[in-house]
């Protein structure tokens, strides 16, 4: 069953500059879709449009239907009931998404209290569980820390924990592993994998890393200059890319992989 259906989504600035151009795709319940593409191609704006979170001044046209609710043109009130329950997002830059003045534990507790009605000791335990689930060390200290008192990759995992705490129908993760070393990244991808399976969560996974996308999703959409240039299984995209941009993406990825295999600088 279709959980998210995007038809002809177009995003414009106040001056009329088109940033996302006539984009269409859909995600079924429990399905995982990768969004890859050039820096500045409109991936983050697309994810924001799905939740009705575009920056002020920008307008969306077309249709975004999320779990039966039309998001384009929806009132703030209708959007509030959708956010968190139907879809939650892990923003690209965790430092901008986390409240700098609130301790990390409390930021994770909020969605847990709201969504699961937990209080007191049960809530504290649930926060501890979430921190452990995203493999944060010293959960006691991290829970009491302010965002600037933990490392970049630790902040990214806090942001992931906050989104997972909402137990959403659709998880939108915008470059959720960019600040993680490859071994913690592998653990996070396994975590996503098992959670998504257990809870039947759908996922939109935005990433510039083809190998990571291949690991998490079955199908991917390639974007450039606000448009979808190609869509297909990750396997096909890597083996026989058709669009010029996809070809250069695969060639670039292969070149970097080759540098690692030679393991010495130029």
């Amino acid at each position, binding site marked *: 069953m279709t959980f998210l259906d995007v038809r002809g989504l177009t995003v414009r600035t106040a001056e009329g500059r088109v940033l996302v151009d006539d984009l269409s795709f859909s995600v079924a319940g429990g399905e995982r879709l990768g969004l890859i593409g050039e820096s*500045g191609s409109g991936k983050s704006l697309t994810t924001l449009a799905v939740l009705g979170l575009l920056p002020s001044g920008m307008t969306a046209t077309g249709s975004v239907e999320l779990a039966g609710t039309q998001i384009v043109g929806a009132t703030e009130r209708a959007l509030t009931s959708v956010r968190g329950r139907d879809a939650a997002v892990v923003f690209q830059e965790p430092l901008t998404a986390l409240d700098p003045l609130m301790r990390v534990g409390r930021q994770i507790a909020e969605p847990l209290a709201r969504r699961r009605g937990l209080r007191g000791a049960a809530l504290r335990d649930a926060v501890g569980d979430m921190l452990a689930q995203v493999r944060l060390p010293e959960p006691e200290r991290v829970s009491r820390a302010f965002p600037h008192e933990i490392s*970049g990759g630790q902040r990214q995992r806090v942001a992931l924990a906050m989104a997972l705490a909402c137990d959403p129908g659709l998880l939108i993760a915008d470059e959720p592993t960019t600040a993680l070393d490859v071994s913690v990244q592998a653990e996070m991808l396994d975590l996503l994998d098992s959670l998504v399976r257990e809870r039947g969560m759908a996922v939109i996974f935005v990433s510039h890393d083809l190998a990571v996308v291949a690991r998490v999703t079955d199908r991917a959409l390639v974007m450039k200059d606000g448009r979808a240039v190609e869509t297909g299984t990750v396997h096909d995209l890597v083996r026989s890319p058709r669009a010029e941009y996809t070809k250069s993406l695969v060639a670039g990825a292969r070149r970097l992989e080759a540098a690692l295999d030679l393991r010495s600088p130029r």
Partner: protein
Amino acid sequence: MTPVLELRDVALRHRGSAVDAVQDISLAVEAGHSLALVGESGAGKTTLLRLLLGLARPTAGTVRFDGAELSLRDREQMRRFRRSVQCVFQDPYSSLDPRRRVGAVVAEPLRSLGIDTRSSAVPKVAAALDRVGLPADAMDRYPHEFSGGQRQRIAIARATVCHPRVLLADEPVSALDVTTRVKVVDLLAELKQEQGLTLVMVSHDLSVVASLCERTAVLEHGHVVEQGDTAQVLGHPAHPYTRRLIDSVPRLPA
């Protein structure tokens, strides 16, 4: 040869913390020999860069610049330090002043070092933006009007606009797609070649490390567990953690 930057037996413990964030660190950065810092999230990589930048003071050991201990009170040394060393922070957005246009943000090192006036900086800023693949009209917009990867490139343009001797960069390409990443790696390689730039780079992308840095240090839990020539460290890792790191690199489907 005297290292440009050096950490000698350095430790740092954060206020209120029961353990050292980094401990027993000795690292030397020789001119022209770029150094990569790799390791687990939370291992202390950003902490080391902050120490090298003089933004944090070690609780033990010393930080040295051109052979002398780094001292915030030595104004002559600080002037040389600021002229020589630039950095790219891990969170690009929070390091860019949101109230200033990108043109002013990128020109800032040129202005504060007294190298250029507002108008004489403009062509250099345009060239620096062009090198990272951003159009000249980016100068008139504010940082929040850019994508994550574009902001990261704005930070790189700012750090390279005044031709520093040393660039300290914390995950400088983490938000870039592969094609853009290859361009930025080429740019940094060119700056190394042509201007003798010395790079100290934190990156979890081992292929970028292999492309740019002659030397690599591997951190785990606040300790350097292994350091040496990149080819040696990545090609014949001696420490189990390094091996695990290399084995976890996600690969493209064949």
